[in-house]
């Protein structure tokens, strides 16, 4: 099953083209890793999938992105609903400077307008799913910024889960974390794909190899425009890629 389909996506910042002709199918309930050196457009591409680039005034996009077959860049498409369905975890943990509870309750409260006991159970369920409930059940009123970075990042993940998304985009979710926390996030990802489709941007080759089912390798020739070099099953990309540049990159010859 294809969850998200990108067709001939070109993206521009003003007159500068930052993505050229990206076509990619993201499979449902699988993990797709986007890899490549800095500035190759992988993050930009991911931000096209929940239209986070909309707030960049000079950004424009050509081509199509489909979620369950519906074009998300159509004029009539509801961005708020899109972002509820396609959640995002950022590179630096960015919990709101509020309590643990308020962080997780934010989405249901503000976006879905849940109240009272329903809200409590959503918060509990979301925290359970990321393995924070045991650690934080007595600290729900604590300031989220007082948690460790790893806890903060899992809290951000719980915050995303609280709106019951279908797809989770992760922009280098472990780059600020230590190795143990990194492994926890990766384990979580493997658990979460029972219910969710995950797209992860990562600089870490081993991470891509460890967690993902599919890998897309992005590269830029001119330091500006990102292109998709190769896309396939992770095992194949890492063992017998078709493109020489892919071999060079994953074996650490550049990047």
């Amino acid at each position, binding site marked *: 099953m294809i969850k998200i389909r990108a067709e001939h996506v070109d993206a521009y910042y003003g007159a500068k083209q930052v993505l050229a002709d990206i076509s990619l199918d993201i499979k449902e309930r699988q993990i797709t890793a986007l890899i490549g050196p800095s500035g190759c457009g992988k993050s930009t591409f991911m931000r096209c999938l929940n239209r986070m680039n909309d707030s960049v005034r000079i950004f424009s996009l050509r081509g199509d992105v489909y979620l369950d077959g519906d074009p998300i860049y159509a004029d009539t498409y509801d961005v708020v609903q899109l972002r509820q369905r396609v959640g995002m975890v*950022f590179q630096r943990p960015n919990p709101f400077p509020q309590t643990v509870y308020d962080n997780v309750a934010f989405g249901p409260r503000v976006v879905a307008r849940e109240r009272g006991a329903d809200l409590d159970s959503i918060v509990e369920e979301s925290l359970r799913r990321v393995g924070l409930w045991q650690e934080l059940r007595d600290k729900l009123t604590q300031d989220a*910024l007082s948690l460790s970075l790893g806890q903060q990042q899992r809290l951000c993940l719980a915050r995303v889960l609280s709106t019951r998304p279908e797809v989770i985009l992760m922009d280098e979710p472990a780059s600020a974390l230590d190795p143990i926390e990194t492994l926890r996030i990766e384990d979580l990802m493997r658990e979460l794909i029972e219910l969710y489709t995950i797209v992860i941007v990562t600089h870490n080759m081993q991470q891509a190899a460890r967690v993902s089912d599919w890998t897309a390798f992005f590269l830029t020739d001119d330091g500006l425009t990102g292109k998709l070099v190769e896309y396939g099953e992770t095992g194949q990309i890492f063992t017998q890629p078709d493109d020489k540049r892919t071999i060079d990159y994953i074996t650490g010859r550049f990047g």
Partner: protein
Amino acid sequence: MRRSRRTLVALRSGPEWAIEAIIRVLGVSTIGLVALIFIFLLTEGLPAFFEIPLGNLLGIRWYPTSELYGTLPLLLGSVLITVVAMIIAFPLGVCTAVFIREIAPAWAREILKPMVEVLAGIPSVVLGFFGMVVLAPVVREGLGAPTGLTTFTGALVLAYMALPTIISVAEDALDAVPKSYRDAGLAMGATEWQTIWRVVLPAARSGILMALMLGMGRAIGETMAVMMVTGNAARMPVGLDALLRPVRTMTATIAAEMGEVASGSTHYHVLFAIALILFVLVFAITLASASVMFRRRERGGLR
């Protein structure tokens, strides 16, 4: 650490030492001057508390010619006019800050920010004059007050005067909210407005509280504009119609009467006692805002 620094000082050459000494003297003297002013206020104001009974001093009648020195109407006048001014200016100022920082396009921000700072530079006598000539008739005719020189008129002028402070401090507070919070809100499916209201404003709340405090400090100490538009009747500002009646503030009383009073008389001492009260009030507000800022720093950055 301490020791090595001292050795370093000892090794310094002559001019270096002199420059440091001059800076130190200048820095300390500024604080010293404030202390001197406070001591002056104390020596001139405290006798009032011994020369007349406390009941008189805290009474509700201010008729210095009849030996009635009730400061309560003046104190309440100052407080009422400041509170009303803040009720008007605070929401307005915060909304303006939100507009400038969050909603206006970049080019408009470039124009609006300096304009707000220019507002702060308008001399208060000019605003007082404007209040007298333009606002007062509007208040008299529009709201049916017996005179246009009322608490409300004063509060309007004060609100206007406090606005630049509130706007720029609140704007700085919003500016300090990391973009990552906004991104997180938007990525959750919150609208721009929900993100501003539920994420950005709460994150900036200590800075916004400070904007309120500083605006309040600005308003309560203001003299000239207030004196020109409030009618200066030293009556107790109680009852529902107090807003549309004249009122007299502590600052206006000092400014109006200090020139007429015999140096060293009871009246003179009482005026200083009022100044003392004002000083303590403003000091308390400043202290409160400083503690807010301190707490903010403790939490790591401008969060």
